[in-house]
């Protein structure tokens, strides 16, 4: 059972870990003393405080916690959609002040963020238009990203012609085509059925393996959090704060059957659960 490590110990462990296929330098996400307080009139609600986390290039970090604790708020701060009250967010050596090209967001409700008047390929290519990329290149990137998520040849379909799982793949493809180095996912697999969820979880691992992106995943599903992550951040309390950081020592190669049977899986899972349910 590992205890939360200090920064230096953490640095050493990364050096000893298996090398990732493709690493993107300067995309380490560093969060220091992050806090968010909503001020409405005379009242103020502190959502979370003193959140510290780091995500190395190519890492997957899960954020779990009870419902309503503020996980989504935290993610929105990370994405630059919401301004944090205290603390700083750094990508590499640049400070975050709003949405950046290095981060791609995958929302929970995919159907509401995919545009129904555009085919899926156009949906994937849309952010690239704003980046000023030429059409031929855009389409190529879109097609590649769709292929990377297993939707090769489905680019001509409209989102409403696709199942929930496929739509979520399109949303992931959009984040990939955007050339994001860091994927932020807000309960991305919550709205699909269990079988599709397993497929999508494996897809996330696959994407990380092939493209070397880092992923920050917010989820309420503890199994999912442990299965995917290199590290699980447990958020709890009111106001919320990081109550535990659980290192997940299951190796980089994982699959739904064997990994979940490992004792290390159960241990990590139990520990996380205990932290969440602690009153």
């Amino acid at each position, binding site marked *: 059972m590992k205890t939360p490590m200090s920064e230096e110990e953490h640095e050493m462990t990364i050096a000893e870990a298996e090398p990732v296929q493709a690493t993107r330098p300067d995309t380490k996400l560093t969060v220091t003393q992050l806090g968010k307080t909503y001020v409405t*009139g005379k*009242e103020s609600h502190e959502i979370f405080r003193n959140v510290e986390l780091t995500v190395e290039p190519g890492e997957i970090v899960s954020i779990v916690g009870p419902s309503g604790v503020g996980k989504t708020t935290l993610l929105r701060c990370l994405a630059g959609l919401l301004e944090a009250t205290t603390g700083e967010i750094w990508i590499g050596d640049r400070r975050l002040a709003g949405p950046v090209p290095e981060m791609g967001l995958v929302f929970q409700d995919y159907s509401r963020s995919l545009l129904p008047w555009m085919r899926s390929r156009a949906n994937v290519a849309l952010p690239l238009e704003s980046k000023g990329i030429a059409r031929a290149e855009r389409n190529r990137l879109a097609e590649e990203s769709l292929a990377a998520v297993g939707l090769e040849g489905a680019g001509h379909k409209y989102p409403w012609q696709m199942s929930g799982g496929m739509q979520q793949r399109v949303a992931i493809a959009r984040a990939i085509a955007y050339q994001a180095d860091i994927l932020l996912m807000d309960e991305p697999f919550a709205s699909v059925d269990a079988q599709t969820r397993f497929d999508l979880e494996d897809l996330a691992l696959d994407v990380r393996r092939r493209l070397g992106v880092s992923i920050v995943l917010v989820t309420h599903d503890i199994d999912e959090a442990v299965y995917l992550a290199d590290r699980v951040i447990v958020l709890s309390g009111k106001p919320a704060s990081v109550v535990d950081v659980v290192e997940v020592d299951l190796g980089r190669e994982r699959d739904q059957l064997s990994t979940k049977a490992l004792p290390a899986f159960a241990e990590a899972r139990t520990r996380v659960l205990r932290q969440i349910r602690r009153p």
Partner: protein
Amino acid sequence: MAILSAPPATRAVPVPGPDTPWYRRRLGLLVGRLVVGVAIVLVWWLAAALDWLPDTLLPSPLAVLLAFVALIGEGAFWLSFLRTLGNGMAALGLAIVVGIPLGLVLGLLPPVERATRFLLDLGRSFPVIALLPVMILLLGANGQMEIVVVFLGVLWPVLLQTIYGSRRLDPVVRDTTRAYRFTLWIRFAKVLLPAAAPFTMTGIRVAGSVSILVAMAVELLAWTPGLGSDLGHAQIDERPDYALAYLFWAGFLGIGINYLFQFIEDRALIWNARGDQGGMAR
């Protein structure tokens, strides 16, 4: 599917809470609106003073205000006002009496509804004011003719909305009433009418606004007594200040009618929800 896009119910501003930004809190809203109002009047005054638009189109705001207020004291104005309102409401009453039963029946019998669909679409999209010349030929230029024309114009919202409402009667409910052998009257009054009532009320509200529009148009073109002909007279007599004053009065009449019918619609639905007889007022 909306039959007619009704003038949306003008609802009160949402009650502000601690969360609300400055332009939603009661005072902030008032100030904002006042500022806009003052700005509009200033631009208007400037335009009139500097003659950006011909005087006959845009007299000074002060002149219009004076005319607007002056009308309040004129008995002739109120007579016209009541004439227009009266004609509109009379025609609306006729439309309700004809439109609701007809709508319920048509809604109940799908083959009939399909057969009449073309006619209904045609009637709905027919600009009733185009009928004015033939109506004048047939009935002369008087108040009765005006009521007939307005009736022809406001029948459609009431009729179509009632059809729509009665078509939406849950087939399960309909089968149940048939299975339990409810008498036709009870089915009509206690089942069909309440089901169609909300839609009918919307249709009546729309018809209310349309009735004033058509009434004024008839008065304007046929010179039957009312606000419309007063406006036309003011314009011919080269009193644009009065013409615009009439315009504003007509606008307030329109808003007033809309509020009134929205109020009635809300009340009627409350009674309906309480299960009173067929949504009809006691």
